[in-house]
């Protein structure tokens, strides 16, 4: 399967996921007794080695020889059905590999500064490494089942890290919520896998895609592929926080900020996009499923962005922004522009990772406060954080020539021009871009401009809101009288990510990125080419026009935010006042959590309490166990009198028994 001229360096691929696993094991087993320096060394060394190996692989990667595959071990062999542990490296995996190890390594470094004073430091580092292991397994998997291992594993790591401060009730339940909501998605994913096993007899990417390739939407296979596509999308919606399963992601902000950056912004939540892009062969032959993906993506993008407007918690704004940006990526996948989706995934990993890390730096610098209404004026106190955060804000808003400008524009153009696309997607996308720009600059102005609205350390100790949010900082040795800049171990990753946020999009200029990924999305590319060949001349002008409109939307958002949160600070309250109910609905996240509580949580809890607990568990299962135990006790109580302790009564029983046996044998002898 692998060409004989395979570069030996590429054989390091199977080792890459194992490196962070080693780090996780060492820190997990011995971290409690190790010094923090040793923990740091182990965690960073293993993660850094993985990144280094990924860079070496990228250097020796040749598109001509791809895809490479690396069988590691046999796993399931049942008749014709085979699933092996094997890894796979093509252009798509390579991009994901670099993003995951690169951004992951930077966030590991950042975590050293952010989590240093936490009692659970070794635990944190171990979980982070564990997450890296599963995420790398996910992106390097050669078949859906190994991918599923990674998929579930990152869910586990996410659960562990959201509930990292498990003594805090809200964190513990946020972890549970994330896990349970993801179960719903995993259910869909699993059924899709079962369908593949049933109809294609394999879970291997190459085999499944070979089986799918000859099917066209018009043939009988369409219903099957639509079903598989929709079920995969259910899985992706769970992991990547799309409507209707997005509710766990905002709550996941209970975790430490580096976790939000790494897992709930840069890498894990994009796993759904990766999975859909990986299954592009299936989706392209199921137009219905594609349409559902595009619609869900577009609606999620718009819906989450509107919620982001009214949030006051800096991390919640970013969380809804993540949901919204993931919606863009699904919109791209849904219109068949998979490479644009992956492109945005990559740039999003840079700028959203940066946004979260910078927000973490802000939170760190002012003593654990997350409420933007208590910030302000911080550009004076933390210039580097301000600088990097500004870059990230301008990037996400889509200002040229920053990274997201290229990726978002690519998506919007594809949403308009692709054969699967429509001007509706584009319009909603542009509106979302405007809202994104608005709420991000709102965050920016509220945090860094005006006067500092937080109290000093003495005040802070007496404010319940701060005391609550300051959990992660209550152990810090230094006081928080003044907002202060973070240490360089935290600022370093910020600066690197800022550079990537600026330049990360340039790889997309001239369609380089798309061409690089084209072999993975072959059939999609042909559709695209045909389309572009016909509408090339007309397309260029439209593309420029659309680009100008989306940049205009970004500027409009900036101006509106400037107007409301810098110039006329009294206006937002008045607007909120005049909107009344609508504002309340948005501020309360459209009451979706409450709706789910009434529709799903309450029936399940009530049914479990009355039927499953009281009737089935207590009435049937417990009763059966207790009754049989009672019966045994009563019978024994009567039978125990046989054991009298009197030797001669025993002798009598023996003799009687012997007599019965003899009588039986005699009787048998007589009758036969």
């Amino acid at each position: 399967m692998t060409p004989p001229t395979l570069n030996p360096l590429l054989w390091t691929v199977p080792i890459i996921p194992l490196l962070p696993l080693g780090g996780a094991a060492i820190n997990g087993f011995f971290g409690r007794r190790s010094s923090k320096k040793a923990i740091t060394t182990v965690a960073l060394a293993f993660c850094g080695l993985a990144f280094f190996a990924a860079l070496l692989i990228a250097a020796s990667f040749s598109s001509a020889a791809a895809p490479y595959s690396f069988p590691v071990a046999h796993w399931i062999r049942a008749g014709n059905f085979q699933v092996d542990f094997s890894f796979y490296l093509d252009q798509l995996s390579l991009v994901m590999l670099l993003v995951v190890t690169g951004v992951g390594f930077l966030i590991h470094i950042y975590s050293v500064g952010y989590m240093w004073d936490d009692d659970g430091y070794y635990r944190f580092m171990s979980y982070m490494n564990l997450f890296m292991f599963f995420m790398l397994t996910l992106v390097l998997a050669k078949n859906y089942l190994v991918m599923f291992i990674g998929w579930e594993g990152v869910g586990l790591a996410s659960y562990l890290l959201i509930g990292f401060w498990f003594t805090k009730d809200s964190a513990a339940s946020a972890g549970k919520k994330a896990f349970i909501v993801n179960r719903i998605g995993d259910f869909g994913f699993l059924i899709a896998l079962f369908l593949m096993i049933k109809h294609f007899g394999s879970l291997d990417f190459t085999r499944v895609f070979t089986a799918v390739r000859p099917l066209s939407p018009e043939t009988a296979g369409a219903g099957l592929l639509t079903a598989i596509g929709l079920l995969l999308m259910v899985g992706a919606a769970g992991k990547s926080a799309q409507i209707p399963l997005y509710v766990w992601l905002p709550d996941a902000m209970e975790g430490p900020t580096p976790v939000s950056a790494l897992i709930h912004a840069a890498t894990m939540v994009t796993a759904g996009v990766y999975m859909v892009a990986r299954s592009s062969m299936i989706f392209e032959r199921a137009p219905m499923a594609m349409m559902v993906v595009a619609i869900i993506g577009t609606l999620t993008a718009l819906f989450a962005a509107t919620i982001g407007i009214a949030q006051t918690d800096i991390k919640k704004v970013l969380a809804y922004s993540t949901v919204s940006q993931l919606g863009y990526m699904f919109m791209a996948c849904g219109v068949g522009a998979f490479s644009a989706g992956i492109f945005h995934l990559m740039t999003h990993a840079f700028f959203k990772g940066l946004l979260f890390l910078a927000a973490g730096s802000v939170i760190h610098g002012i003593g654990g406060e997350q409420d933007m209404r208590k910030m302000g004026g911080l550009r004076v106190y933390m210039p580097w954080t301000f600088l990097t955060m500004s870059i990230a804000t301008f990037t996400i808003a889509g200002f040229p020539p920053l990274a997201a400008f290229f990726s978002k524009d690519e998506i919007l153009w594809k949403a308009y021009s692709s054969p699967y696309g429509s001007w509706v997607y584009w319009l909603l996308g542009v509106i979302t871009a405007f809202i994104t720009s608005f709420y991000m600059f709102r965050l920016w102005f509220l945090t860094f401009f005006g006067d500092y609205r937080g109290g000093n350390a003495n005040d802070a100790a007496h404010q319940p809101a701060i005391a609550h949010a300051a959990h992660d900082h209550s152990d810090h040795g230094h006081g928080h009288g003044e907002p202060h800049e973070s240490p360089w171990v935290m600022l370093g990753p910020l600066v690197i990510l800022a550079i990537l946020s600026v330049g990360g999009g340039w790889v997309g200029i001239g369609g380089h990125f798309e061409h690089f990924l084209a072999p993975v999305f072959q059939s999609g590319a042909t559709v695209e080419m045909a389309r572009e060949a016909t509408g090339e001349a007309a397309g260029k002008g439209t593309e420029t026009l659309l680009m100008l409109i989306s940049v205009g939307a970004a500027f409009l958002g900036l101006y509106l935010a400037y107007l409301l949160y810098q110039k006329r600070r009294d206006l937002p309250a008045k607007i909120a006042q005049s909107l009344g109910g609508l504002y309340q609905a948005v501020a309360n996240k459209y009451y979706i959590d409450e709706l789910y509580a009434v529709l799903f949580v309450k029936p399940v809890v009530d049914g479990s309490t009355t039927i499953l607990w009281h009737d089935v568990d207590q009435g049937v299962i417990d009763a059966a166990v207790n009754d049989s135990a009672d019966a045994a006790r009563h019978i024994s109580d009567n039978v125990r009198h046989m054991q009298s302790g009197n030797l001669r009564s025993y002798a009598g029983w023996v003799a009687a028994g012997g007599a019965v046996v003899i009588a039986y044998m005699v009787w048998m002898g007589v009758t036969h």
Partner: protein
Amino acid sequence: MIPLSYYLLLSGILFACGVLGFLIKRNIITIFMSIELMLNGVNLSFVAFAAQWHALSGQVFVFFVMVVAAAETAVGLAIIIAVYRTRETLNVDRVNLLKL
């Protein structure tokens, strides 16, 4: 020649005596002797059959039974001595510490 049935009858009587003594006697030594009586009743039927059918295996069995009985006697007597030392009686009705 004495017919087989005579031997078997004697064997049965010996065995029945053994069972009876085993059940009604209270002295451990007497019970012990009753057990030996039962064994020897069985032995008698073994040798009777062996003589009748000219099969040597019956006689071999008897030797085995005698060897085992000798060993059992040694152990049994040791137990009886131990019982007497602790309980100062050989009446089985008073050796009843295991009863409920």
